[in-house]
């Protein structure tokens, strides 16, 4: 029942795009942290830094017709899915030009055009919704994939087990993409789960599964490609465990008392951006000049996003009760 994935090299142009997308996420979030300190962004802010290879690699295998359900740590997924950085940044500010019109903030990014269904801040809460989106596709014979991202923390929730069971029972076209960054907030996986081999849990439900190096964007892309093809071919749900690591704190309020700095430093040696960039440099795909151009392009995009958010407007207070119901009661 093990899902066979290959790490065959992707074409060079694609690899450059993957590197660029990871850089976009990294720079976007570094800017978010800065803007948080400046008081421009409030509420909870969960940074994806260190985990970029997962979203970037996985999104590569999706088409615009597919759906994405993500977590509260979803800026990376949103950018990789093609949501405009300006609209995303405006959402962080709470401006009405934001992709959720400012009503959601960092944890609730939605975008109908991208078929991006949140931004779910209840751990595990997105899995049943992904199952339902896939059910709608199955019932209407649409060969689409619903990619559901969640963390190792969600694996302890009942909804994880219920959703894997139902998706497998009904052979629904769901890609369960588990981002195992080893910590559910501050609780290390071996302090939370009796079985830490997450792919084994999926196999127990009869779901083909694989464990993927989540720091290697090419591996993430290749594994997702295989899983997505199997789903489109009608093989039912597939499960990928991406082994990854969050370099930053859980949120902006986390003193990181629960892990050693040495552990963080060790993982940083496998920074997905450095891994990808150095490989591309070694293979002569991206030389220093090309990298500098890439950096400049990304910096310009982020600066543009901040300018867009700054120029954005506050929704009038008279609109407060909008969008509770489609037709106001």
């Amino acid at each position, binding site marked *: 029942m093990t899902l066979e994935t290959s790490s065959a090299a992707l074409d060079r142009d694609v690899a450059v795009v993957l590197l660029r997308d990871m850089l976009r996420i990294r720079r976007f979030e570094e800017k978010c942290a800065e803007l948080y300190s400046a008081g421009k962004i409030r509420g909870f802010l969960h940074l994806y830094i260190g985990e970029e290879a997962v979203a970037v690699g996985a999104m590569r295998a999706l088409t615009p017709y597919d759906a994405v359900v993500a977590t509260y740590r979803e800026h990376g997924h949103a950018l990789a899915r093609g949501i405009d950085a300006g609209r995303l940044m405006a959402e962080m500010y709470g401006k009405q030009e934001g992709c959720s019109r400012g009503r959601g903030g960092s944890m609730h990014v939605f975008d109908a055009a991208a078929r991006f269904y949140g931004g779910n801040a209840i751990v595990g809460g997105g899995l049943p919704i992904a199952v339902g989106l896939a*059910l709608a596709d199955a019932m209407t014979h649409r060969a689409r994939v619903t990619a559901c991202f969640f963390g190792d923390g969600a694996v302890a929730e009942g909804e994880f087990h219920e959703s894997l069971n139902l998706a497998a029972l009904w052979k629904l076209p769901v890609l369960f993409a588990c981002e195992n960054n080893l910590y559910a907030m501050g609780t290390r996986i071996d302090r939370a789960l009796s079985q830490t081999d997450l792919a084994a849990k999926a196999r127990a439900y009869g779901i083909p599964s694989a464990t993927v190096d989540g720091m290697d964007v090419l591996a993430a892309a290749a594994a997702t490609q295989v899983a997505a093809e199997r789903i489109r071919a009608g093989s039912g749900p597939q499960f990928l465990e991406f082994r990854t690591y969050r370099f930053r704190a859980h949120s902006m309020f986390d003193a990181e008392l629960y892990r050693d700095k040495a552990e963080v430093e060790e993982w940083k040696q496998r920074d997905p951006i450095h891994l990808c960039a150095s490989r591309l440099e070694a293979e002569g795909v991206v030389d220093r000049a090309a990298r500098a151009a890439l950096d400049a392009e990304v910096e310009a995009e982020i600066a543009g996003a901040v300018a867009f958010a700054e120029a954005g407007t506050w929704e009038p207070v008279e609109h407060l009760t909008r969008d509770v*119901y*489609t037709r106001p009661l």
Partner: protein
Amino acid sequence: MSTTVAIQHVTYREALRQALRDALLRDPRVFLIGEDVGKYGGSYAVSKGLLAEFGPERIRDTPLSESTFVGAGIGAALGGMRPIVEVMTVNFCLLALDQIVNNAATIRHMSGGQFSIPLVIRMATGAGRQLAAQHAHSLEGWLAHIPGIRVVTPATVEDARGMLWTALEDPDPVLIFEPQTLYNMEGDLAESAGAVEIDRAAVRRMGASLTIVTYGATLHKALTAASTLAQEGIEAEVVDLRTLRPLDMTTIEASVRKTRRVVIADEGWRSGSLSAEIAARLGERLFYNLDAPIARVCTEEVPIPYPKHLEDAALPQADTIAAAARALLH
């Protein structure tokens, strides 16, 4: 010239089944999903026969996983379907509150209006069948607290027949509460009966002495109380809320302005209840129109006990409603 209206004598259960069948026939996007809705025929036999007629694609038996099949209903609604989720009883929906409260009620708002959830969730509610404290509570008032969802309670065969289709046409989540003591209730229904509106309360009996505001199974106790009171010369007007969110204060206020006295009979517990909300609104708006304090008859503050005499004593009854009415007039 005369017109003949064909009338059928049906149970509340049969009216619900006709509504389900009608919806399944009218809209290919409609499907029924829940525990034992198919082969078993529904735990209250509401969906009996539908599996044979519509097949397992549209009558979907689920594992016991309330949170996930309710969430799957939300996802399917987002994906363009019109799911009807059956949760056996409101007590079990507590296992799915995350999906109902954190997702169904919020996604439209959190997404800035990009996504609506056209979802219907049906569930049985209420006491009266000696099912004790985990199968007999009336928690619909709790759910009516939540902005983003609609809550309705059919108390008649017409509403059992007609509320479902209107709920399915609503772009937002609608919860339908079916009082479990009403499934065997019989009534007359026009053969042509169809959709009914779900925004308004209904005056089920006219009267000038006082108003009894109620809903669900308690409506029938209130009507019994009104008959008793009529023999004593007290004419009670009985208002069936029908919709718990939004509350139709226009109809309630019009009645209370006329009668100047009100008893609110609510199968929920008194503390923090729907009856408290209605009383507060009437106090805010009609304080100077009232000739007596607002009275309430609610369930005693106890988990529903198993023995019949204690269960009966815990719930609003026709005699306790009538006693509360008399107390306002003497």
